[in-house]
C-alpha cells in the first residue's frame, strides 16, 4: 500500500478522555476499566482479537450504546472536558459532534444529495437551499467523492459501489461538521482498491477531525494511525505510538497478537 507507518504529530489538544470505563451487557462485562486519551491531531487505531470489545468501547464514545437496551456504561468520558454521560449533555448534539462510520456502508435509500443533506437538515445547519448545496458539495469534496458523483447527485446512494458508499457515509458524517469521527472497521467490507482510497481519505482528514478507527487488519492500523490501542478480553492491554506497538510492544500479549499467535 502507499503509506508507510505514520509519524506522530506532537499532541496539541486532547479531544476526548476516557477514565476507568466499564461497559456491561446485562450481567456480562464487556469492557473492564479502560482509560484512554484521544487527541485532535493524530489518528487512533483500536486493534485486538474479535470480541475483545473494540466496537463496544468505540460506541461508548458517542453514546451509540444507549440504543442497546441491555448496555450500561460506568466511568467517565469527556469531550472537550465535558462529561458526555452527564444529564446535561444532549445526546443528539453529542452525536452530531462525534460522527460515526460503520463497518458496512449504510447510505440511506435516498439520493446522494439527500444522504449528505440529511444531517445539516435535521440540525438546521443550512440557511437555505443554496447554503445546503454548498455544504453538500464541500462535504463530497472532502470525502473525495465529488468528481465521481457530481453529475448524478440525484441518483440513489445505494446505487454506488461499496467503496463509494463508504466515502458517501464519511461525507455524510463530515457534513454536520463533527469534531471527532469514529470508524468501526470501515474497510472490512471493501476490496483493496476501495480500501486504499479510504485510507487515503483518512490521511487527508487527519488534523481537521479527531479520528478513531477500529480495524482487524494490523497492516492497516500501521498504515493509517499514529497511536494504537490494543484491546484484549475487554481490557486495554497497551496504548501507545503505533510504530512502537508494532515494532517494540511492551506487553507479551500484544506481541503474541501482532505476531499471529492468536486472534
Amino acid at each position, binding site marked *: 500500500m502507499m503509506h508507510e507507518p505514520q509519524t506522530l504529530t506532537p499532541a496539541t489538544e486532547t479531544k476526548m478522555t476516557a477514565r476507568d470505563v466499564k461497559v456491561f451487557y446485562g450481567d456480562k462485562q464487556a469492557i473492564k476499566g479502560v482509560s484512554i486519551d484521544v487527541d485532535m491531531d493524530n489518528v487512533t487505531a483500536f486493534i485486538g482479537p474479535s470480541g475483545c470489545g473494540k466496537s463496544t468501547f468505540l460506541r461508548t464514545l*458517542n453514546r451509540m450504546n444507549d440504543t442497546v437496551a441491555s448496555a450500561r456504561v460506568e466511568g467517565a468520558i469527556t469531550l472537550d472536558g465535558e462529561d458526555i454521560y452527564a444529564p446535561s449533555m444532549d445526546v443528539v448534539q453529542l452525536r452530531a459532534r462525534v460522527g460515526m462510520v460503520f463497518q458496512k456502508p449504510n*447510505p440511506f435509500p435516498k439520493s446522494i444529495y439527500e444522504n449528505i443533506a440529511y444531517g445539516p437538515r*435535521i440540525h438546521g445547519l443550512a440557511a437555505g437551499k443554496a447554503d445546503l448545496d454548498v455544504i453538500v458539495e464541500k462535504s463530497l469534496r472532502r470525502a473525495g467523492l465529488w468528481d465521481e458523483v457530481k453529475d448524478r447527485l440525484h441518483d440513489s446512494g445505494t446505487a454506488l459501489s461499496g467503496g463509494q458508499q463508504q466515502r458517501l457515509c464519511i461525507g455524510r458524517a463530515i457534513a454536520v461538521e463533527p469534531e471527532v469521527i469514529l470508524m468501526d472497521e470501515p474497510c472490512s467490507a471493501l476490496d483493496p482498491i476501495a480500501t486504499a482510497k479510504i485510507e487515503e481519505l483518512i490521511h487527508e482528514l487527519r488534523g481537521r477531525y479527531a479520528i478513531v478507527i477500529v480495524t482487524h487488519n494490523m497492516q492497516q492500523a500501521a498504515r493509517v494511525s499514529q497511536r494504537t490501542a490494543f484491546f484484549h478480553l475487554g481490557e486495554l492491554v497497551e496504548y501507545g505510538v503505533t510504530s512502537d506497538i508494532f515494532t517494540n510492544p511492551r506487553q507479551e500479549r500484544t506481541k503474541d497478537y501482532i505476531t499471529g499467535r492468536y486472534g
Partner: protein
Amino acid sequence: MTGPAIFLLLAGLGAIAWVSARARALRLQTVARTSGRRDAVHSLPGYHGWYVALWTLIPAAIFLAIWANVSPGLITQTVLSDPAAQSLPADAFSRSAILGEARNIASGAQAAAFNPAARALVEPYRTAMNEYGIAGAALALVLAFAGGAYAFTRVRPDFRARTRVERLVMASLLIASLLAIVTTLGIVVSLLWESIRFFSMVNPVDFLFGTKWSPQSAAMGYGNKDAFGAVPLFWGTIFIGAIIAMVVAIPLGLMSAIYLTQYARPQVRKWMKPILEVLAGVPTVVYGYFAALTIAPALRDFAVSVGIHGASSESALAAGLVMGVMIIPFVSSMADDSIAAVPQSMRDGSLAMGATTSETIRKVLIPAALPGVVGGVLLAVSRAIGETMIVVMAAGLAANLTLNPFSSVTTVTTQIVQLLTGDQEFDSAKTLAAFALGLVLFIVTLLLNIVALRVVKKYREAYE
C-alpha cells in the same frame, strides 16, 4: 349385502392381507439375509404388508365406487321392466320423483311414501337392490382376492414393496394439492357461469357503469334496464372499505406498529401485540352487532345534535369505523414486518448523525419501509372490501352515491347477501346479479392481492 357389511368385510380382508404378507416377507427375508448379499433384502416386512393390503383394498374399493354409481341405473332399469312400473306417469320429473322415493323406502332411508304411486314399486326395488347388492359384493370380494393374491405372489425378499407403497403416498399428496386448483376452478366456473347468464340479460356496460341500482324494480317486472347499475355499490364499497376504514386503520395501525417496535419496552410489546391481534380475531358478526347496536346510534345522535342533514342510523361511518378497527392488526403487522425488514444499520446510521428517534422513523425508516407498508395497506383494503357481516348489519341497503359519511350506503357484499337470502325469483337477473357482483369482487380482490404481494416481495428482495 349392505354397505357397512361389505366395508367391514373388506377391512378384515385388508388386515389379513397385511398380517400374512408381512409374516411371509419376514420369513423369506430372514432366510435371504443368511445368504449374505446385502441387496438380497429390499423393503421392511411392514411395507410388504401394506403393499398386499393395498392391492386387496384399492381395486375392490374402486370397483365399489363405480358400482355404486352404475348399479342404481341398472336397478332402476330392472324395476322399470316390472309390471308395477307400467302405471308410472310419462313426465320425466314426477317419474323420477316416484322412483327415487321408492328406492329410498326400499333402502330404508325413508320411512313412508310421500307419493302413493311409489308404494307399489318398493318391493320390486327391494328385490332388485338385493340382487345387485349381492352381485356387487361378490364381484368386490373376487377382486379383493385376486388383487391380494397377485400381490402376495410378488412378495420376495428383494421385491421393492417400499417403492410401490411410497409411490402411492406421493400420488395421494399430489392429488390433495390439486384440490386447490379444483377449488379455484370451482369458484371461477360457478361465478362465470351464472355471470354469463346474467350478462345475457343485462348489458355489462350498464352493469359496470350504470349509476342506478334497484334490482327490486327489475324483479317486479319493470325490466332490467336501469336496474343493475352497480356504480353506487362500488362507491359504497370503496367509501366504507377503502376510505373510511383506512382513514382509521392506517394511522392507528402504523403508529401502533411504530410505537410497539421502536418505543415500547419489550414487556409492553410482548403483551400489547397479541392483545391488538385479538382485534383481528373477533368474529365479524360481533363487530357488526357492535356497530349496529352501539356505534351507529351514537354516531347518528351525534350527527343530529350537530345538525348534519341526512344522518342515518345505518351510516357508512359506523360500518367504516368498526371495520377500520378490525383492520388495525393487519396494517400494524404488515408495517411491523416492513419496518423490521429495514436493516438495523439504517437506524444506526441515522441515530449516529444525531437524529432523534422520531426523525429517524419519519425520515429514514418509513420512507425505506414504504413499499412494504403500501403492500400491507393494499392487502388490508382487499380484506376490507370483501368483508361482509359488518356492512350487512351496519351499512344499510340504500344504494346512494354520496359523500356524506353519516348517510347510508350499500356495498357489493351486502347486496350479494341481500339478493340471495331475500326474495328470490326463478333465475331472475336479480339472483344472478349476486354472482356477477361476486365475480367483480373476486377479480378486484385478486388483483389487489397480486399487486400487493408483488410490491411486498420486490421490496423484500431489495434488502436481501
